[in-house]
């Protein structure tokens, strides 16, 4: 018999649980649906950091969270991108910046102009034409301006424990009931959770259970048919280490990701410290050896303890079973690379809200959710694996192995088309748009062999002028940006409100087609 959802229980810990609860409260509480959180013990270590994409600001805006609190309470540092070093042997480091895509319009992608320019002797690196990369190099914080062709905005590094506490506070003060507890058992009824049996004896029933418990997947892993499909074959690092170092002065506008023989080590600047994260392959190096060599690998002295944990990259065979939906890393997880970790949770929650079930006795929305999440996960996995596939280190089996591996077909198509024509085929549910893939591929040394023939219709003088204009625009915009320390000091709620949501004003441009005009995104 069809009936409405009345009670939702979120199970999890840390930011993912609070993000899920906040989104639910915002969207369905006013409809009379009760939201409750069963809070599991935290998985966070004091040194943990969340590295986040600019999209996260949209989430904060939607739930009504004042972004300035990230800076005042969570030691946040705005990031224009990440710099990758030593992935290409002797090749130079490159920056993957958070450029926003230009509006959908007629006209050639600038990348095509650059490719032809390169063939004609243009020596300026591709990175110089990325507003975000140039802002990053100058230590400045990109913010959206009137310019719709060339725009960038910042992501973040956030202290994980502080951010979780902030969200927890936000959610509980918003009236969501919360209880700290462990789960003793799941009472299953076929493929549905009839109730949770908590360690303290309480029996918790609900119409819908949201598993926001991270990779431990406390609920979804106990549902039928949800084994983890491992992605270890693509992403070789199975161990992670987190530690802290002193704060960097002045604060840089990018995170630093350096490859080493058995993995990579990242430096993520925060206001009061620098988070150091290493990901590595335990088949190639032991935890102890990484701890011991960390100061040399990271090139900074380490303060305090390093904590090691496992990484299990992969995706659940099913991400929504019966009345249990996995959001975030309980559904799929990747390496802590490319700032995807929080985005995984954000994306799952956003999709879930558009598919919020209409009937507590039949969850027909689950199949579409699973397909969407799977596509998004594969695209993100491909993005991370591309770093490994395109590496030009020839020093260890780890790097040789990745380079020689035949990539998944989805990625092979991207590599092939980019190598042939400098174009990126995008599929459904992509997080990263063309410019992110382009800067990744070109940064790792993949140079297109030809370019869009329409570039040949641009007269040489005009071509040169456009190239020069873009360089000038970037220099001009970067000059107007605040350095990181100054940005943080001057942050206030009102200023941040004005910056978001990100692409609202882009929609004011004239559009011509059904798909552009009708809100497809």
């Amino acid at each position, binding site marked *: 018999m069809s009936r409405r959802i009345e009670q939702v229980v979120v199970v999890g810990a840390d930011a993912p649980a609070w993000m899920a609860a906040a989104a639910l409260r915002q969207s369905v509480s006013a409809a009379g649906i009760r939201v409750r959180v069963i809070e599991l013990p935290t998985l966070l270590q004091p040194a943990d950091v969340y590295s986040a994409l600019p999209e996260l600001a949209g989430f904060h805006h939607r739930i009504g969270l004042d972004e300035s609190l990230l800076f005042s309470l969570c030691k946040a540092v705005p990031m224009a991108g990440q710099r990758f070093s030593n992935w290409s042997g002797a090749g130079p480091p490159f920056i993957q910046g958070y450029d926003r895509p230009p509006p959908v319009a*007629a006209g050639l992608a600038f990348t095509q102009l650059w490719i032809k320019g390169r063939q004609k002797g243009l020596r300026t690196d591709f990175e110089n034409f990325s507003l975000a990369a140039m802002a990053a190099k100058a230590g400045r914080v990109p913010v959206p301006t009137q310019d719709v062709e060339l725009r960038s905005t910042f992501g973040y590094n956030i202290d994980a424990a502080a951010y979780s506490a902030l969200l927890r506070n936000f959610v509980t003060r918003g009236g969501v009931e919360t209880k700290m507890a462990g789960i003793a058992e799941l009472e299953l009824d076929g493929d549905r959770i009839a109730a949770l049996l908590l360690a303290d004896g309480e029996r918790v029933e609900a119409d819908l259970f949201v598993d926001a418990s991270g990779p431990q997947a406390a609920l979804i892993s106990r549902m039928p048919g949800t084994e983890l499909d491992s992605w270890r074959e693509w992403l070789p690092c199975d161990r992670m280490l987190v530690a802290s170092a002193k704060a960097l002065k002045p604060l840089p506008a990018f995170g630093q990701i350096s490859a080493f023989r058995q993995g990579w080590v990242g430096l993520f600047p925060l206001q009061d410290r620098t988070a150091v994260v290493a990901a590595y392959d335990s088949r190639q190096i032991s935890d102890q050896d990484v701890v011991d060599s960390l100061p040399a690998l990271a090139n900074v002295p380490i303060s305090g303890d390093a904590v090691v944990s496992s990484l299990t990259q992969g995706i659940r065979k099913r991400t929504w079973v019966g009345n249990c939906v996995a959001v975030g890393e309980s559904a799929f997880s990747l390496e802590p690379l490319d700032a995807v970790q929080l985005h995984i949770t954000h994306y799952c929650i956003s999709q879930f809200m558009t598919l919020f079930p209409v009937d507590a006795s039949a969850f027909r929305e689950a199949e*579409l959710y699973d397909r969407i999440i799977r596509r998004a996960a594969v695209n993100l996995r491909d993005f991370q694996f591309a770093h490994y596939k395109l590496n030009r280190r020839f020093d260890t089996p780890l790097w040789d192995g990745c380079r020689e591996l035949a990539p998944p077909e989805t990625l092979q198509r991207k590599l092939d088309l980019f190598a042939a024509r400098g*174009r990126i085929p995008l599929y459904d549910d992509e997080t990263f748009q063309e410019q992110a893939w382009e800067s990744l591929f070109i940064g790792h040394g993949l140079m297109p062999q030809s370019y869009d*023939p329409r570039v*040949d219709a641009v007269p040489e003088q005009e071509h040169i002028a456009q190239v020069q204009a873009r360089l000038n625009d970037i220099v001009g915009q970067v000059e107007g940006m605040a350095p990181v320390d100054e940005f943080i000091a001057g942050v206030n709620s009102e200023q941040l409100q004005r910056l978001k949501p990100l692409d609202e004003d882009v929609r004011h*441009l*004239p559009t*011509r087609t059904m798909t552009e005009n*009708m809100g497809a995104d």
Partner: protein
Amino acid sequence: MSEPLDIVILGGGTAGWMAAAALVSLVPPARCRVRLIESEEIGIVGVGEATFPEIRNFNDAIGIDEAEMMRATKAAFKLGIQFVDWGFKGSRYIHPFGVHGPVGMDHIFHHRWLRARRLGLKWDLQDYSFAAQAARDCRFELPETRRTTIDSAYTYAYHFDAGLYSVYLRGLAEQRGVIRTEGKVRDVVQDPETGNIRSLVLESGETISGDLFIDCSGFRSLLLGKTLGVGWEDWAKWLPCDRAFAVPSERDELSPYTRSTAMEAGWRWRIPLQHRTGNGYVFSTGFIDEDRAAASLMRSLETKALAEPRMLKFQAGRRLVNWEKNCVAVGLAGGFLEPLESTSIYLIQVAIMQLVPLLPCKSVDPRLRDEFNRLIDLQYERIRDFLILHYKLNRRDDAEIWRYCAAMDVPESLTRKIELFRHSAIIERYKDGLFPPTSWLSVFLGQGLIPESYSPLADTMPGESLLGHLDAFHADILDRVEEMRRHDRFIDLYCAAEPSAVPMGAEIRL
């Protein structure tokens, strides 16, 4: 400097001349040279007199002035398609080129409407579509560009004489350097090793060589199908219509929408142009014979016929790939889907505009070809499913074709969409190709598929508030539509093919 790519287009008509015009306008001669072979003897199908909004992007890319084109092709505007008698006899609904509800509320609006219906609301969803209201009232103005007002919530396309459009493009293309050769092909010469097409030998004996061949030879698919042997994927079991009669009739009321009326063995189109009305009956010989179909069409014309009906034969389906070796099919040579949603010219356009950025340098790079094929696959599949939807969702019991279509199995991807909408009022979104959610919504509801439920996210506002908002929005639409100029008047002022008695002037609000 490397040699230019030599492109040979076989066939004129809309497909051939759109391809020629685009290539010569977008790519300089140092990069590619374009030749087109056509024969006056070979009849042109004259397909697709109604279009889809994307055509405006195509015209812009080539640098065509809208008013001038409309004058040359005797065009009128199109805000959508009205479907009559599809759900059941007596039903009518509009598939608009615009959203339902206010701009920016696309995800949630129809859920709110569903809830409001349960609270007693009388209006249909299309009463909240600005484009549908304007169309019904025979009004037209160019949409606002600022994306916040009611009048930005729609876009538009054209009704035009496709024969005149291809003549117009031919003039443009030849002026910009396309070489036209009159003649019929007698032989195709292939490279013995690779199988690539090397040249075409005309009946006159002239040999025309090329690097890349664009097959616009229509249903015959002389190059892709017959020469290169690319197989056919048949879709007749889902789309049983295999014939059409077309007949022009006198000019009628200039309504800014195409009308599709379901008939005893298919459906009839009505396309109003400035100088005449285009009519046709798309039907299935499995359910009616040709003579009866012709008679049925003639009987149902709203205005006097201007000629005898002309018949076309076709099959629903497509070539397995549209780019094989060094041959790309554009238009009917690559596949056919009936013009129920005016997608014929759209498919031509999409093939051309995907081909241009992927043009080989000289010899074919399979990586470029594979990407082209991937994109075209998506386009065909998505349109196909949407057309099948119209047939599947009929609730008529009065003729065999309708009973057949209601009962037929449909592609799994479509079944899933139908069932999900039925259950939760959710519409799946996808990135490439037609149709956006607003289109699916209008057909689902228009043909009577009312969802069993709606999203709880629409339950957050108090019922009274919701009804109040909807009333106010509905009133806004009606007010704004009433202020709009009548469509025939707008045509007079903007792009009359014949000079009008009334002078153009400051009256035009553009």
